[in-house]
């Protein structure tokens, strides 16, 4: 594999896309929908937005044009890879009444279309590794997640710029991708540097017959890393973990709950949140029934409903559950924090609650 950077001239970008398509992948890339960057199917790189920059802040997301003419000057959109592997709605199994008064069960299977995603960021890859850990590391692995996951070919892009909400450098998850990709691009003024992270990636690079990157190009890459890292906000994940572990009685939870809408937007956009609920959808005559799982959230009423009682009726304990799990007890569970610093929960909170500020508020209160 050898993490060696090659130079991909602009005019070979489409060749790369064509080769990936020819290998049976449906290509997904950046696309502007509803005033945000989302991943959508494409066939030509000319469909990608050019010279678009995102301005993000608590409860605010705005796209504007800029003049660099780059494809990847934006930082991120409302979703990472989560909806592509852990589907918002997934049929699990069906039960059917049979003529001899028994019930047949059969699993809903089917391999989703092979998909190549262009423009994945380092935080997205770190989040994917966490989801893998959750859904695949224990036996039996989750077959639905696995099917969504194994079909992916990931073409990452190193961030040239951070949004005002980003803090992946603090969590150790960016702004450059180190692993978890098949290919990784760094966009320079006159083309891309490209490096392989898997055998599939190496094959693609070999087939393109590229030259090795020059020294000055590698220097540009390093500078880009410095710039994108410097632009970020800071958070000390270790300190946060301990502060939150002692914060159960903090008054700050009630203060935050005055603003929090308990709407679950933060957990829906968070690339590592994996809670779901299940439901039955019987046919009208009851001859069969589908069991389906759907994204849920620790901000919902049903999330803490256990044996006739909802434990977290109010917003304060729900917010506390979200924050302490993500940043503290997650470490006990999975060996690292559940936050990859993508900043989405800050941007997409309709109440404009800033998770870093919340942590400060809770920590300050804990230290008093």
């Amino acid at each position, binding site marked *: 594999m050898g993490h060696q950077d090659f130079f991909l001239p602009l005019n070979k970008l489409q060749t790369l896309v064509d080769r990936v398509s020819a290998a049976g992948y449906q290509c997904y890339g950046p696309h502007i929908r*509803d005033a945000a960057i989302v991943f959508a199917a494409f066939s030509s790189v000319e469909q990608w937005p050019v010279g678009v920059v995102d301005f993000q802040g608590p409860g605010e997301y705005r796209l504007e044009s800029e003049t660099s003419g780059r494809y990847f000057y934006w930082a991120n959109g409302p979703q990472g890879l989560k909806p592509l592997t852990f589907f918002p709605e997934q049929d699990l199994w069906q039960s059917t009444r049979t003529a001899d008064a028994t019930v047949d069960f059969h699993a809903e299977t089917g391999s989703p279309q092979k998909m190549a995603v262009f423009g994945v960021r380092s935080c997205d890859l770190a989040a994917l590794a966490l989801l893998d850990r959750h859904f695949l590391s224990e036996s039996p692995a989750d077959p639905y997640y696995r099917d969504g996951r194994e079909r992916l070919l990931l073409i990452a892009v190193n961030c040239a710029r951070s949004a005002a909400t980003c803090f992946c450098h603090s969590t150790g998850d960016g702004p450059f991708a180190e692993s978890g990709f098949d290919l990784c691009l760094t966009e320079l003024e006159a083309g891309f540097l490209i490096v392989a992270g898997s055998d599939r990636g190496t094959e693609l690079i070999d087939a393109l017959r590229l030259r090795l990157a020059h020294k000055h190009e590698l220097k540009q890459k390093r500078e880009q890393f410095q710039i994108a890292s410097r632009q970020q906000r800071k958070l000390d994940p270790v300190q946060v973990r301990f502060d939150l572990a002692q914060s159960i009685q903090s008054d700050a939870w009630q203060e935050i709950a005055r603003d*929090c809408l*308990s709407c679950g937007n933060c957990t829906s956009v968070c690339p590592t949140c994996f809670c779901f609920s299940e439901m039955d959808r019987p046919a009208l005559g009851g001859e069969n029934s589908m069991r389906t799982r759907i994204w849920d959230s620790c901000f919902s009423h049903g999330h803490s409903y256990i044996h006739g009682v909802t434990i977290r009726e109010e917003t304060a304990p729900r917010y506390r559950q979200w924050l302490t799990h993500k940043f503290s007890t997650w470490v006990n569970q999975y060996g690292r924090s559940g936050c990859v610093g993508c900043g989405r929960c800050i941007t997409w909170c309709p109440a404009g609650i800033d998770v870093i500020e919340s942590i400060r508020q809770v920590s300050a209160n804990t230290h008093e």
Partner: protein
Amino acid sequence: MSRLSLAVHKFSSCDGCQLALLNAGKDFLELTRLMEIRHFAEAGILDNNAEVDIAIVEGSISTEADLPRIQAIRKHSKWLLTVGACATSGGLQALRNMHDSGQWMIDIYATPGSIDSLETATPISAHVPVDFEIWGCPITTEALLEALKSLMAGVSPIEHSDKLCIECKRRQQVCVMVTGARPCMGAVTRSGCGAICPRVGRACYGCYGPAENPNTASLANRFKGFGLMDDEITRRFWFINSAADGFRQEGETWDKK
């Protein structure tokens, strides 16, 4: 599974919610096989006083004559289900509860004397015990069939009181509040509509009524930050479900400012 009997009753409403049954198409035909429909005027089946297992009630109580009628329906049915904003919260017409409805009548109608109505429009639950409520203006066919399926299976219908945001994000809709500073009611409104408004880029106007644990004050403050005038904020909360707990009080707060 025993064959349950059903009646569909109407009070002050637009008839849009009972259409959820007729609009079920093939499923409606299937339903006539599974249940015995004893009263459903919109489908031409008439027996106002039929004894039934399930009474579906649409519309709010807004005339003198409604009062004894809803009592009789309650007496004749085992389970009473309200459908839609009118029956469940009083609906759009409950706006008159907060105003001089007599004066409105004079201002609007040529012969107000010919109109016989109460001063207020109230939900069914203000008059008789209600077993289950389906919110929405209008409700969906799926929600109604789901409730009927549950009752046929002998279990309580599922209450869908989550916030619309959760459903909106499940459908991968981009938040219109965050991208466009639009005054979306989704964060305090029940799910169930499929996020139709946000999906066409519009702000939710709360027609499904208050979700569980709604933080209306915080949302209203956010609207204020977007530049809405106080009376515009009141109208966001009062539009369809002005008499619903939570929406009523938040509307009042900004009405008084």
